[in-house]
């Protein structure tokens, strides 16, 4: 049975609803599943979550928690947030600075009139789960490190065993190492407590690693939803592919069993069919640098010619290569061993199985670095 | 040393040496000085008329009259005196106690004008200051000729005819009984010794006046101007001891308003400051006040010092002048104290 059911959720902002932040989102999250909403900044992830939590009032749609209707625009039902029985973890922790860690965690229990005894027991238990000892719990948030604060926030969200736990980019404010640590902690927590969760992030690694299922959002709509490996292996659109780290190798037109490059020198097999234009995408670590001038590739390989090394970076156990393809820059991650000099000419190759082809949209895209509209707000 | 109002302070460095020796020289010098600053307790409208009349007589002297209410008019002078500033030349005010306090300090110039002297002689000679009854003012120049009586202001009471259907026949109709409880206004006895003297004198006539007033919980006004306006607007039903001058404009505006001036008057003085920057013009002005033309302008609506001033309102029979000259300053202080106590201060 689904623990959370969302139907045709819709929310617009602006004076006359100009900005549609959430556009007919429909979702189901089964009991004990962790669903991750992932997508570029501004795509409506937070708004969706806030609608579920009751922090935002949707314009249309239905939200059900189990068999309880929490929101129904048509029937004018809107259970206020404090009666929804949820846990919420914020990006900026949102701890109460005037309360100790203990009192922060105790608050949801107090709000539910849990007895003193029981409170002590539950806080003790959850503190153990999130690995906070009593000494830390007696401190105020300002005296805790970022990681410790976030752990208190996790404990606060979980302690009352709410029906649904929601996370809005809970790790974005932390540094890389800590993020990695807490990410696996959240996963462990979820495996241990098996709560139903909705988790919002724009970090793909986080989404992959935390989610039982991942919903990819763009422009307020959920485009694809599925297991992480499904999304990773077969992104539904080029937009999602980009999210998953795929980058444009070349724009190509299929002609008589061959792809032909439109914005680069390209060669490789193509399915038969009419000559429509596609873009071919591959992940930077699946593109290899081939010897220059090798003739026609095999049936399992694509080849892009005429690249120029524009920059080399050392990444520890790998190196990073910026390759200029006729003005377009492509970033590759290649093993150490061979050294490259800026200005050196290289050809690139990718296995057919590692590439994905998508019909070319009309939107002009010339740079293949992460585009501005994806990264800036 | 902060005691007293100005004693021991520096005299303005620019203080003039005093008026010229002979009257023609005074007149000449006054024209050269060309300007005069006078502070007066009377209303701005009244002062404007005076200014116009004077400047018509002495076109070369630019007269400016500023109104200050009591006691402000004297405290300002004290403050300026202490600061060594002398922006005022002539005071037209009412506070004899204040004058007495500063007599020894050389605050004031002698008033030397011939018409002033003539008026004084006239009064000394027994001519009465145009009031019937028993005037107690027998001279115009006091305190070594530094203080000059320029007019007498009538005092009475007023009531709002909308609220009060049967006019109170006399003062004691206002404070005998509870009719006016919470609806009577009066001048604050602390703002000016004239008020104190008035209430004190009345208390001689109506023995437990202070207690009766206290029981009425009167609204206190700083001076007759605001009091008569409040009366006209209906904020109180009656005002006790109001100056005739303040009543006139309100009456003129057509309010349900009536007043009675049962033969009470207090004098208004002119004083020329020693620190005056225009000592000659000051003399010219004070002297002019005592001429028939001067009285016609200055005493218009008040009781004049000279006889036969057409604009003056000397008609009220039996005006009793509550001349502060005759009152012991200690008595004034005692009255003030008693009145304050009765009013709950």
């Amino acid at each position: 049975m689904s623990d959370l059911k969302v139907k045709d959720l819709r929310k617009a902002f602006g004076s006359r609803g100009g900005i549609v932040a959430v556009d007919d989102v429909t979702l189901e999250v089964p009991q004990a599943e962790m669903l991750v909403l992932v997508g570029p900044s501004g795509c409506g992830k937070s708004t969706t979550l806030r609608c579920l939590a009751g922090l935002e009032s949707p314009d249309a749609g239905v939200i059900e928690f189990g068999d309880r209707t929490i929101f129904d625009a048509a029937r004018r039902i809107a259970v206020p947030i404090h009666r929804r029985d949820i846990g919420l973890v914020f990006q900026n922790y949102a701890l109460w600075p005037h309360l100790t860690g203990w009192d922060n965690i105790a608050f949801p229990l107090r709000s539910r009139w849990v007895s003193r005894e029981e409170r002590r027991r539950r806080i003790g238990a959850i503190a153990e789960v999130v690995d906070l000892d009593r000494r830390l719990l007696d401190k105020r948030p300002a005296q805790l490190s970022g990681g410790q604060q976030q752990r208190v926030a996790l404990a606060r969200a979980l302690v009352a065993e709410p029906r649904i736990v929601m996370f809005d980019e809970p790790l974005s404010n932390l540094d890389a190492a800590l993020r990695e640590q807490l990410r696996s902690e959240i996963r462990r927590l979820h495996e241990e407590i098996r709560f139903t969760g909705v988790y919002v992030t724009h970090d793909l690694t986080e989404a992959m690693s935390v989610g039982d299922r991942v919903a990819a959002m763009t422009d307020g709509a959920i485009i694809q939803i599925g297991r992480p490996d499904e999304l990773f292996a077969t992104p539904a659109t080029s937009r999602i592919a980009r999210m998953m780290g795929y980058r444009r190798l070349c724009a190509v037109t299929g002609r008589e069993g061959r792809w032909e490059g439109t914005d680069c020198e390209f060669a490789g097999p193509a399915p038969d069919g009419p000559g429509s234009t596609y873009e071919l995408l591959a992940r930077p670590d699946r593109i290899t640098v081939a010897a220059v001038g090798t003739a026609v590739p095999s049936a399992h390989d694509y080849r892009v010619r005429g690249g120029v090394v524009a920059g080399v970076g050392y990444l520890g156990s790998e190196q990073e290569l910026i390759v200029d393809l006729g003005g377009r820059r492509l970033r590759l991650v290649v093993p150490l061993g061979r050294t490259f000099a800026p200005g050196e000419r290289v050809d690139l190759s990718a296995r057919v199985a590692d590439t994905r082809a998508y019909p070319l949209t009309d939107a002009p895209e010339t740079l293949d670095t992460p585009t501005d509209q994806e990264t800036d707000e | 040393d902060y005691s007293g109002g100005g004693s021991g302070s520096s005299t303005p460095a620019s203080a003039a040496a005093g008026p010229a020796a002979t009257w023609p020289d005074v007149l000449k010098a006054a024209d050269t000085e060309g300007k005069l600053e006078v502070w007066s307790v009377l209303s701005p409208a009244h002062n404007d008329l005076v200014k116009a009349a004077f400047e018509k007589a002495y076109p070369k002297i630019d007269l400016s009259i500023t109104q200050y209410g009591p006691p402000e008019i004297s405290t300002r002078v004290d403050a300026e005196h202490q600061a060594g500033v002398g922006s005022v030349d002539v005071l037209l005010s009412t506070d004899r106690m204040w004058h007495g306090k500063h007599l020894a300090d050389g605050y004031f110039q002698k008033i030397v004008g011939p018409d002033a002297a003539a008026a004084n002689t006239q009064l000394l000679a027994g001519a009465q200051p145009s009031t019937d009854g028993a005037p107690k003012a027998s001279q115009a120049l006091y305190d070594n000729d530094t203080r000059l009586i320029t007019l007498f202001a009538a005092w009475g009471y007023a009531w709002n005819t909308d609220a009060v259907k049967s006019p109170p026949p006399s003062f004691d109709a206002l404070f005998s009984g509870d009719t006016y409880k919470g609806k009577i206004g009066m001048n604050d006895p602390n703002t000016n010794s004239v008020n104190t003297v008035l209430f004190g004198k009345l208390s001689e006539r109506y023995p437990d006046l202070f207690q009766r007033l206290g029981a009425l919980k009167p609204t206190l006004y700083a001076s007759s101007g605001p009091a008569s306006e409040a009366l006209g607007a209906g904020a109180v039903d009656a005002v006790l001891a109001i100056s005739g001058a303040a009543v006139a404009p309100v009456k003129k505006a057509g309010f349900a308003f009536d007043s009675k001036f049962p033969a009470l008057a207090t004098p208004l003085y002119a004083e020329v400051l020693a620190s005056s920057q225009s000592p000659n013009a000051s003399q010219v002005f004070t002297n002019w006040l005592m001429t028939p033309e001067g009285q016609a302008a200055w005493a218009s609506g008040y009781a004049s010092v000279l006889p036969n001033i057409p604009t003056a309102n000397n008609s009220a029979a039996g005006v009793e002048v509550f001349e502060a000259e005759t009152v012991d300053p200690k008595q004034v202080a005692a009255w003030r104290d008693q009145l304050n106590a009765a009013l709950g201060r």
Partner: protein
Amino acid sequence: MHTTGSVASEKHSRADTDDPRPAPRPRVGLVDRRPAQSAARRSAALVLVAVLALLCLPPVYYVIDAALSGGGSGLRQMLADRSLGRTVQITVTLALGSVVISTVLGIVLAWGAQGLSRRHRWLGHIPLVPLVMPALAAVTGFGYLLNPSIGFGNLLLRKIMFWSDAESGPLDVNTVPFILIVTATLLTSFVYLFVRSALAQLDQGVYDAAAASGASPARAFFSVVLPLLRPAIVYSSLTVMLLALGQFAVPLFLGRQENLNVLSTAMFVSMSSSPPDIPLAAAYGLPIIVAGIVFLVVQRVVLRDQDRYASTGTKGAARSLNKSGWFSHAALVVYGLVAVAAPILSVAIVAFQPFWSKNIVIGDFTLDNFRSVFANPKLVDAIGNTLVYSLSATAIVVPLGYLCAKVLYRRRQQRIIANLVDVLVSMSLGIPAVIFGVGFLLAFTHGPLNLYGRGAGLVAVYVVVILPFVTRLALVGMLNLGDNLIEAGAASGGTLWRRTLTLELPMLRPALGNAVAICLVLTAQEFGASILVRSSRTQVMSTVLYDQFANGSNSQVAVMAFLMCAITGAGVLLALLLGRRSSPKES
């Protein structure tokens, strides 16, 4: 409103205490190493301290000296005063009552303003109006509104309510409760200002988290929001207490008719009796000075451990969940009607009536009163004087306040000097303007510097009274600006002058622009100090208004009050327009 605000406040005492880093090591090292530079900076700062000391200390010295002169004759006289007990009682009632009323009201309004819908956002500005509305206008307005027998408000109430047969009441503005209510209504703006900005800085997540934790809105408000607002509330209530203690205009205009005195009006009365009883006046002022200093110290101590209130989050932009929109709208509208619209409307009615009257006949409205005001050269002079003094004081105090803020901002480098500046600047916060008025008057008349009767005297008083506001605004501007932007200028090779002129000042423009606007508004309506320091040649609008009140005509009082409102309003609008245009968006 001649009142004072706050420098001693959150921001820099925070810079002081919030700083996790310990104090710097002794400065000997730097002195040794860069003698010339540091000596120059130090002597500049010392000059500043000297100027401040010259401005702020003599008035206070003279008041204290006068109170203790003649073997404490003033104090003895005060203690002998029959009505001292009542005066003190009213003063304390006014102070404590104002704190309670304005704090509660301010919080309610601020919280209500959080819940305003976008379309009604402007309602949130209403409670700020009394900050710029001339206090005298408001007070006279309340006088016309709530006069027991013919106040417009009372007439209306009598008409619509069951008191209709009564001849007076139901409300009487000339009583302690109403003096208190009027004072508190006006001071509510301060609480509102601070609580509102504290609310705006509050991380919305803090509230959302409470709701998400299952707390009802009331619980969330009382257990999370209110505690987090504590610094703002404590700070603003202490400020209100100070302001109410030194409150002058309201009791003077409303209380004198019923013989109600507070310490400051008792002081004024002694000062303006004939002859002025200076020792007695100073003696009345002494308790206010002491209370002011005590409160400044208390404020410091109470606000010391502020980091516990420092929210851990960074995202501001609080957005209220308060769905009870009608309540917030209603509260703000009622406040706006009662505290702002009604008094101003009353003033306007009286200004246009031929004569103050309870019968409002619109057909009779006339501009005669305006004409006679403008025909009176004294009043016109006063308007001109007001403009000149305001502009001059602003021209002096803004640079001075900027320099003070600079020293306070670099507190860590010049701790002693910064503390001196802080104390001096804060002094005119703790000490009401009316006492500064007396102090300056004494300093001018008994001290070596003779500014009495000169515009410079009033300008000097204004500078002292306004300095804390400007310093605070400039300091907050600097704190918001931070170090990096200026350091970037230095790293780019910009000299001190270039950095200051082309980077710092332009970037501080919004803050300094606000400071200029506040200066103009507050000086243009200053009353407490002006009434004492003015002379016949240096009348300003507020003092002329008072003179008219004391012995002139109500109509002219109303016209002056109306004009003050109009001029202030125009100034504020202008400042808003300029501020909006000039404020560069922060990156």
